[in-house]
């Protein structure tokens, strides 16, 4: 029982889940809405609105059975048409949902009866159920989609009360929530506090109970306070040094490799994350069973890098501009670290911060050299395939990497019959990713929340969601 006051660091643009793009928005999405499935704390897919599901043998036809008696906050019963409408909305280009590409695979969908919905896929896809755990794929009432942005109606544990842009979102307990006895809290207040110092100060004074995504710089301070605690979980959220494989000089694999060689990932993790992350090679974090343990995280080797550069025709290095999106502290630090670490290799880097909207429009996928980052994805396939397959949606828009061998490995992995086969294939893919270095992924980041000792039952989620169903406050 009680009210939980939490803070997020940036304003929410929208409360319409299909259109959400930022972690702080997903926080709200998981409190207000549900998907057909949910990714658990163990990264396994679990039933949510769908009680159970089955698929045809060719993995192309998927049928989901909805939970009975689920009500939207507006009192209406959830039915299969809502599911169809929600997904159709995501598929609509004009909605501008980033999840759209996920559902391009869907050939058709149909409500078989009020509690059953069936999807026909274009190609076989084993991970289809996980897709519904994706952040944007929330199920919304089909008759209230127009007001979702400012007055969201969902089926989640908390009901929307008010949203003051720039200030706060207030939610209250959903009395009709389908999991009996949950949620425990009466009210959730999400305050928007952009300043790290203000967040931490508010946490120490008890004005806040929880700081979502605690600023890395403040961890020590929170740890030192006996009335506070820090809860952290490894994720597969990563930042990357993106090199456009079609733009000179990065069209030469030797140059990319040289950059990768010069970068000391351990040092970078220290600089950018203060050690709150783990060096890795690809979006697959070292904690994952598929992680290729044979690949070593090498120390930075500027001399080797220099040699490679000379081979590639840059004996005295080159000068290049590295773009970083403004306002993302870790990525800015990553950029500066890259600048420093490439200096001994003879590469002169000019760091340039650009406002985020400019970054989206003019830098991402267009510039040759920049820092970017991505949230963890629900499955290995969704975290790897889109970036490394030559037809992968992110790949084409990010670094345009293409290697038939990689395509073969990834296509194979999608249809792998056993875990072992999949592990082997992904192991090879990781090695190839290191070899070709389409870009450099230096680390995966820990997700850290700061909270008051009065908060019970909270566990940080590796997808950076905020799961407050079991949480209570003294």
């Amino acid at each position, binding site marked *: 029982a009680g009210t939980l006051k939490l803070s997020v660091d940036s304003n929410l643009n929208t409360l319409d889940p299909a259109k959400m793009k930022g972690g702080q928005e997903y926080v709200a999405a998981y409190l207000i809405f549900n998907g057909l499935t949910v990714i658990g704390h163990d990264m396994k897919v679990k039933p949510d609105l769908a009680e159970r599901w089955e698929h045809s043998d060719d993995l192309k036809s998927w049928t989901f059975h909805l939970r009975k008696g689920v009500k939207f906050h507006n009192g209406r019963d959830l039915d299969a048409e809502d599911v169809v409408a929600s997904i159709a909305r995501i598929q609509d280009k004009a909605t501008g949902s980033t999840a759209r590409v996920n559902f391009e695979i869907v050939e058709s969908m149909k409500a078989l009866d009020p509690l059953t919905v069936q999807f026909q896929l274009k190609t076989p896809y084993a991970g289809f159920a996980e897709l519904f755990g994706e952040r944007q794929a929330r199920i919304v009432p089909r008759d209230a989609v127009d007001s979702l942005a400012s007055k969201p109606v969902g089926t989640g544990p908390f009901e929307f009360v008010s949203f003051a842009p720039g200030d706060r979102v207030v939610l209250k307990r959903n009395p009709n929530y389908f999991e009996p006895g949950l949620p425990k809290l009466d009210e959730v207040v999400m*305050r928007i506090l952009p300043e790290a110092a203000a967040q931490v100060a*508010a946490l120490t004074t008890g004005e806040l109970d929880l700081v979502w995504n605690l600023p890395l710089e403040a961890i020590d301070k929170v740890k030192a306070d006996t009335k506070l605690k820090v809860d952290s979980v490894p994720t597969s959220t990563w930042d990357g040094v993106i090199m456009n494989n079609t733009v000179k000089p990065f069209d030469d694999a030797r140059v990319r490799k040289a950059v990768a060689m010069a970068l000391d990932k351990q040092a970078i993790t220290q600089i950018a994350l203060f050690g709150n992350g783990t060096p890795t090679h690809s979006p697959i974090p070292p904690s994952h069973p598929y992680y290729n343990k044979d690949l070593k995280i090498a120390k930075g080797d500027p001399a080797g890098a220099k040699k490679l550069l000379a081979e590639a025709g840059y004996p005295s290095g080159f000068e290049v501009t590295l773009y970083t999106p403004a306002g993302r502290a870790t990525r800015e630090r990553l950029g500066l670290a890259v600048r420093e670490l490439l200096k001994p290799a003879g590469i002169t880097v000019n760091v340039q911060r650009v406002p985020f909207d400019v970054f989206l429009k003019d830098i991402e996928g267009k510039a040759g050299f920049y820092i970017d980052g991505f949230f963890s994805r629900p499955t290995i396939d969704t975290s790897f395939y889109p970036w490394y397959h030559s037809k992968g949606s992110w790949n084409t828009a990010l670094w345009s990497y293409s290697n038939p061998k990689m395509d073969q490995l990834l296509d194979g992995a999608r249809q792998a019959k056993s875990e072992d086969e999949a592990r082997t294939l992904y192991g090879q893919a990781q090695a190839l990713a290191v070899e070709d270095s389409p870009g450099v992924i230096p680390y995966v980041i820990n997700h850290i929340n700061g909270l008051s000792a009065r908060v019970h039952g909270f566990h940080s989620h590796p997808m950076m969601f905020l799961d407050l169903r079991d949480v209570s406050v003294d």
Partner: protein
Amino acid sequence: MLAYTLTRLLYLALVLVVMSVLIFLVTQAMPGDVASMIAGQFASPEVVQAISVKLGLDQPLIVQYGRWAAGILHGDLGRSLVLEQPIAPILMEALARSLVLAVVALTVVAVAGIGLGVLAAVRRGKLTDQMVSGISYLGIAVPDFFWAIVLVLVFGSYMKLLPTGGYTPVAEGVLPWAAHLVLPVVTLVLMLLARIARLTRSSMIDVLQTNYVKFARAKGMPESVVILRHALKNALLPTITVLAIDFGLILGGVVVIETIFSYPGMGRLLLFAIQRHDLPLIQATILVVSAAYCLANLVADLLYAFVNPKIRHGMRTA
């Protein structure tokens, strides 16, 4: 006076029309666009295009402007593209919060600044004067964001006396509301006080040397009357102007202070809009800020006239 006010209002309207065109053109020239912002990372061009069409961003500029201006004339500030909400309520809320900040901070600044300025002028060259000057220098020398950080540290983190950020509506109780205002107000006061005090001091010194002050003394008026009744009223004129400009400034958003104290005022709204490239929101915000600024100036001029009957007279005949 009425004629003067009318003329000024007409000018104001004119300035706003020019502003609206300017804002519109200038914001169009800003790089980045809202469609790709909404579409997000790696949206395909068709998606961006689809969103543009939906938002009417593909129309010729004149049409867009016409629609926008017509809306404003009907009191409709438009809809935020990102927030997908009507702008007016959001803007008014932020404006109200900035207004609270401005009124409270400027009241303190006016009272303290004028008081200090008068004191320094009267005790010119003495220790008091030098102390006021010293304080002024401190206020001017240390940038507002530095003060803000120090205040957060001292009162929030160490002493845990005051909330360091955010805003609580009065509805939730006067005390929390006031507590949230203290630090931003103090920062603003530190930032603005020095200028007001120094300005008041210098105009007060000028006025204290005028003939009418001398004549008041020749009438045997005690110093307190000379200073308060005869000198101060005349010395306040430049101070009023600066206070009005400061008022416009705070209403227009003190981005840094609002950010550090997480105060959801106009400054952060504008910054938000700019960062999201939400053109209707940017345009509406700037227009309202400009209008507020111009109005503040107009009020200052009218106040000026109120304090100085000579100007009032000039206005009547002008």
